[in-house]
């Protein structure tokens, strides 16, 4: 029997549809969420400092309620003198090369991180010791309330003593026991990772993940072309998300503000040669006036297109932040009065001057970051009626570190699930520690409050000290005290996701340039065939 051509065509079309439906479920996810780490994927040098380091696993994890959950460690306890942590490990954790993760690896990781002096501050750790293959003890020099955060964030690397162990180039070829292993990293372009076949947890939902490291505009174009499944976008571009994609808004504790250099310019330089000090911002009247002049609601509406809320501190809403820490701003009259009282005189509507010093300084922001650029430009306009000129200046991060970080006001961002960050940001011991306390702020009273918080016996006691560091009625790092920053906004993180991608229940994101969304990666699902 001869078939006519229409039947054959229909049959072909149907078989194509059937084949398409029977196709494998999606096994590769392409993401453009930014955040390429300069130093590679080495936890000892700061990779994964906000948790969930992708390639490595951590001893504990943070649940959605931020409480510690078991990961590699199934039992943990702290001695009565609060100096010794004892942790019992799972016995089925393997690195991506199939070898077992033991207490030796954990001890090595903590000891090495303490020596490395990276962004994980383990200076309080005296010694980490493997008691047996599944038990490790961590002994501290003094009690430290935030030490548990290191257990939740520091990824475990293989001991240098083993065959495939930790070496100097670990950041470029990381071997870990996390859900994924690195396949290829083309720096500045993309990172390809695949499932770790030996991962002890549930099977990750996608066989392969591709992370593209693109700028904001390229990301938007890739989204429009349908080349990525999940991408982060600045609030300015939130309205440009293609209609066939879903907009995912993630709550965060990620803030942006102006970090002021606190020292006078006395010709000093940091170890890397970066000049320290700025005679204008070192004057507290200038910093307080700027804080009073900022209209934070407008900053949220214009710079963030409404995706955020005003910020008055580094951890608004967290238990270690003082809920009374706000300002009745904008209040230009009070701001001007503050400047007049301090001797900053204005003539003919020009810039203010004091002792021959003009109220002008650079406000540096990282080039390519639209949100920070907008915040810099808008805040500069808000402050100009005071007779203060902030000059928005774009620089690349490496240039900021070499030249600007201690002498320019910088649009910075932080935000953590742990009060440890408060310690790093405002304790004099961390002056000039990478981006922490880059304004070189020193206040003995604040140092005392921060140290007391670290020594506290309970989180409640510690929170009282953390809040006193912000404002104790006389001094503090906050806007009522030394006004070390002019905090502007708390962000909401915005992502464009394929409508087939179910991201599960998202937690509250810390600062961390896109990576925080991968915290619940194992819960993600592709809902289309």
């Amino acid at each position, binding site marked *: 029997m001869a078939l006519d051509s229409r039947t054959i065509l229909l049959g072909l079309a149907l078989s194509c549809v059937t084949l398409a439906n029977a196709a494998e479920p999606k096994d590769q996810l392409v993401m453009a969420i930014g955040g390429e780490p300069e130093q590679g994927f080495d936890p000892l040098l700061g990779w994964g400092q906000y948790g969930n380091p992708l390639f490595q696993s951590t001893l504990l994890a943070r649940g959605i309620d931020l409480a510690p959950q078991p990961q590699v460690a199934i039992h943990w306890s702290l001695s009565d003198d609060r100096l010794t942590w004892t942790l019992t490990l799972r016995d089925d954790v393997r690195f991506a090369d199939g070898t077992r993760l033991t207490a030796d690896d954990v001890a090595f990781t903590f000891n090495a991180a303490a020596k490395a002096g990276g962004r994980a501050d383990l200076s309080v750790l005296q010694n980490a010791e493997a008691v047996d293959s599944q038990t490790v003890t961590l002994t501290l020099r003094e009690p430290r309330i935030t030490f548990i955060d290191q257990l939740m964030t520091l990824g475990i690397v293989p001991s240098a003593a083993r065959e495939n162990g930790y070496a100097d180039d670990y950041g470029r070829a990381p071997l870990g026991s996390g859900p994924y292993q690195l396949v290829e990293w083309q720096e500045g372009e993309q990172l390809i990772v695949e499932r770790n076949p030996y991962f002890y947890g549930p099977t990750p939902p996608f066989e392969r993940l591709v992370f593209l490291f693109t700028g904001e505009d390229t990301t938007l174009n890739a989204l429009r072309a349908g080349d990525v499944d999940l991408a982060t976008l600045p609030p300015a571009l939130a309205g*440009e998300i293609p209609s066939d994609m879903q907009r995912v808004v993630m709550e965060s504790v990620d803030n942006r503000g102006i970090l002021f250099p606190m020292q006078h310019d006395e010709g000093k330089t940091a170890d890397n040669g970066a000049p320290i000090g700025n005679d204008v911002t070192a004057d507290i009247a200038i910093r307080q006036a700027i804080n009073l002049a900022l209209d934070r609601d407008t900053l949220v509406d214009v710079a963030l297109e409404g995706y955020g809320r005003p910020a008055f501190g580094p951890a608004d809403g967290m238990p270690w932040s003082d809920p009374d820490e706000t300002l009745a701003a904008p209040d230009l009259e009070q701001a001007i009065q503050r400047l007049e009282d301090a001797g900053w005189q204005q003539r003919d509507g020009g810039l203010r001057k004091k002792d021959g010093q003009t109220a002008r300084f650079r406000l540096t922001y990282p080039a390519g970051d639209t949100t920070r650029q907008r915040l810099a430009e808008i805040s500069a306009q808000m402050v100009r009626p005071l007779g203060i000129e902030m000059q928005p*200046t*774009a620089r690349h991060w490496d240039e900021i570190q070499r030249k600007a970080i201690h002498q320019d006001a910088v649009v910075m961002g932080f935000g953590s699930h742990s009060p440890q960050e408060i310690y790093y940001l405002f304790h004099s011991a961390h002056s000039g520690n990478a981006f922490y306390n880059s304004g070189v702020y020193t206040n003995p009273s604040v140092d005392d409050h921060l140290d007391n918080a670290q020594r506290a016996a309970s989180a409640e006691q510690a929170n009282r000290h953390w809040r006193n560091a912000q404002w104790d009625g006389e001094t503090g790092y906050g806007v009522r005290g030394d006004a070390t920053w002019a905090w502007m906004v708390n962000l909401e993180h915005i992502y464009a996701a394929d409508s087939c991608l179910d991201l599960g229940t998202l937690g509250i994101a810390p600062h961390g340039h896109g990576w925080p969304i991968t915290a619940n990666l194992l819960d993600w699902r592709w809902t289309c065939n």
Partner: protein
Amino acid sequence: MSRAQPRRDAFWIGTAIAILLVALLSSRWLLGDTPGQMHFDARLAPPSLDHWLGTDALGRDLWARTLAGLSLSIGVGSLAALFGTLIALGMAMLAMLGPRWDALVALVIDTLLSVPHLILLLLIAFALGGGTQAVIIAVAVTHWPRLARLLRAELLQLRHAPYIVMSRALGKSRRFVMAYHYLPHALPQCVVGALLLFPHAILHEAALTFLGVGLDPSQPAIGLLLADAMRYLSSGAWWLGVFPGLGLLLVVLSLERLSSHWRHAL
């Protein structure tokens, strides 16, 4: 019509265009803070009587920003063209020092011409860290070879001209011949060459800035206005791209016209 008529026309057109360019160049100082002033209640507003060319996403007046951007472009372009021309003149004079120097100059010119100059531009601007200075240097360093080749050919023809041969025979020094014979001959070509370089320099400044290695993003440069416009095209804010683009086109075409008039006039 007298024979002088076309020359007179050229003079008047040239003068008119030159006045336009000077007016644009000086607009940056006349406008003061206006290009940066934000009006939060008029963000992404289409062209109207209040804002002739509309406003951008932060409510800044596009007319003021376009004028300031063109002024910036003309300033940067003229400096880049000037430096490019000086390099070209210097290289052409160098080639006159002897056959070895001539071969070296020819080699440098050929090498530079064999590399696509947008790539060189990007590399140089990136290596210098971006910014106004970097753009001027990058454009100047990449745009001199064509003019240098032209000047070299002109001067080579001159080498055996009777008055040069006689001047040498009379014992005039090489420096004298350079300064009093070669240089005056090359100068008119230089002026035209600089004018021809000018629109190229402006376009490339805009391109570099558009690609993110040019002027500081806080300045209202045309390349930045165009890059910014790309983001909002799909949401219908056509004025952000059209007017700065047309402004750039107008300036570049005016300069082309001016240089061709001058070439005829000279």
